[in-house]
């Protein structure tokens, strides 16, 4: 699969029709997607209509937009006009159809992108693994016996497999950055609220954000521009970007390759220790539980047994927490955020692992944290959750490691500094330190998808 930018350039120039791009994409999906358990709804009719609209604009001599004819997918929690928004819950298949597309989807359509599929996730986004009791476990394209990560695992898997050049997910505590790391992609958690959340099924609104997955930095930048309606400035002769490495728990639970990369990038730069990181993660956990529980309380009262059992019990527990506890966590958050922002005042980018390890096996989904084996579904977000708690932007970038399982780093910035993160990532890309690596072995072909509409 070509990059989004390359496809758009070909379509805009009239070299290729958007409809031809789409038909090739649909054939590829039919041939290769099934083993990934990533696509839940193939939207071929809608996609053809969108592609024809793009081709019509080209034929009229109009500019079809910066994403002209680029096929993409969205996590199952984005509203799509005329379809129920399932949020990964099988029992919501009969929910009333959405009246209109989510705002992010609308902006992509305006830019010429062509929506092809909706994608698997942990039910109601409550997990780091895309283990969905009803819709199946999404598999990692780099090794089908391993997890893709979650909760936006379907979005990551289709991009990593080269089936689509980009996809949208959502990140509440790490749901974009974790699968981006495990699948070897770029994945963005923006400054909280920077990308439009209208029409996105919520999980914990204090932390929810829309986040794109791409296989190249250039594609990530154009998506950012389309979704925000802004232009990323070229840095020109700006002052050098000030970088620090996060120490403490971030280094204690990391793959040696991540530490080597971080030290190669910024070995002479200070090790910054964010204080009370464990307290921050716990407060984030409590706020998430309270908000998720409150959101689902009414539905649980009548449909509890329709939920994924593990998700149900977590949501029920959250629904029973006293409001005072959430208030206490919010107060801690407010004080903590001010302290950390002061601590990073002299830095532009903080470097940290995105996940503590490579993708765990589906058969034995455990990872080692502080020397103990812990459930991957629970602890894969150990390094992303505290950053979420602070509302900071964080770009997951893939270490260049051909032949190895993917691993990512987080480039963390101050609020509103996504362009700085892109600029620093560009430096790393230019130095050959980061890049998405296609899966080594091709996916088994011939397992054609069936039963999808």
């Amino acid at each position, binding site marked *: 699969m070509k990059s989004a930018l390359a496809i758009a350039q070909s379509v805009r120039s009239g070299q290729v029709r958007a409809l031809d791009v789409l038909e090739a994409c649909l054939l590829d999906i039919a041939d290769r997607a099934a083993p990934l358990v990533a696509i839940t709804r193939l939207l071929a009719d809608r996609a053809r209509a969108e592609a024809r609209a793009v081709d019509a604009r080209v034929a009229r001599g109009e500019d079809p937009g910066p994403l002209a004819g680029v096929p993409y997918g969205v996590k199952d929690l984005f509203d799509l006009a005329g379809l129920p928004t399932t949020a990964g819950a099988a029992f919501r298949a009969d929910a009333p159809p959405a009246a209109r597309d989510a705002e992010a989807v609308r902006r992509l359509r305006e830019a010429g992108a062509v929506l092809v599929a909706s994608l698997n996730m942990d039910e109601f986004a*409550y997990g780091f693994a895309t283990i969905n009791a009803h819709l199946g476990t999404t598999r990692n394209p780099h090794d089908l016996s391993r997890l893709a990560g979650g909760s936006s695992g379907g979005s990551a898997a289709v991009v990593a497999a080269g089936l689509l050049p980009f996809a949208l997910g959502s990140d509440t505590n790490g749901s974009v950055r974790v699968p981006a790391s495990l699948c070897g992609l770029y994945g963005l958690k923006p400054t909280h609220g920077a990308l439009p959340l209208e029409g996105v099924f919520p999980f914990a609104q204090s932390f929810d954000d829309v986040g794109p997955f791409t296989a190249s930095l250039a594609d990530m930048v154009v998506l950012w521009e389309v979704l925000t309606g802004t232009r990323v400035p070229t840095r020109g002769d700006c002052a050098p970007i000030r970088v620090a490495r996060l120490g403490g728990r971030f280094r204690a639970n990391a793959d040696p390759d991540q530490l080597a990369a971080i030290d190669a990038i910024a070995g002479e730069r200070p090790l910054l220790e964010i204080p*009370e*990181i464990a307290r921050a993660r716990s407060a984030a956990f409590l706020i998430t*539980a309270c908000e998720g529980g409150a959101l689902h309380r009414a539905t649980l009262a009548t449909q*509890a047994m329709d939920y994924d059992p593990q998700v149900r019990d977590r949501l*029920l527990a959250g629904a029973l*927490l006293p409001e005072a506890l959430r208030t206490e966590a919010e107060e801690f958050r407010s004080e903590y955020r001010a302290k950390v922002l002061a601590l990073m005042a002299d830095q532009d980018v903080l470097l940290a692992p995105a996940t503590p390890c490579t993708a765990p096996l589906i058969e034995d989904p455990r990872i080692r944290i*502080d020397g103990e084996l*812990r459930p991957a579904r629970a602890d894969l*977000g150990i390094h992303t959750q505290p950053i979420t708690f602070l509302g900071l932007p964080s770009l997951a970038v893939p270490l260049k490691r051909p032949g190895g399982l993917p691993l990512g780093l987080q480039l963390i910035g101050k609020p509103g500094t996504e362009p700085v993160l892109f600029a620093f990532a560009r430096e790393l890309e230019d130095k050959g330190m980061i890049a998405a690596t296609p899966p080594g072995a091709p996916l088994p072909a011939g397992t054609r998808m069936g039963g999808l509409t």
Partner: protein
Amino acid sequence: MQEPTVTGPKGAIVPRSAEAIAEAAARRGVVLPAACREGVAQNMALLEAHLWSMRGYEASDRTGGEGA
């Protein structure tokens, strides 16, 4: 005998015993099907551990927990 519950400077409590969980559920109008009770109790224990951790006790955050 009831299990101990965490209380802190702000006094918020995580219900832990079966009785306390049932009482909290009744107060909020939440129905707890029998099949959920064990799982809910386990999650309440996890939440209590996170409450300890947030308040700065030694319970560390090796309590895990999902919150993607």
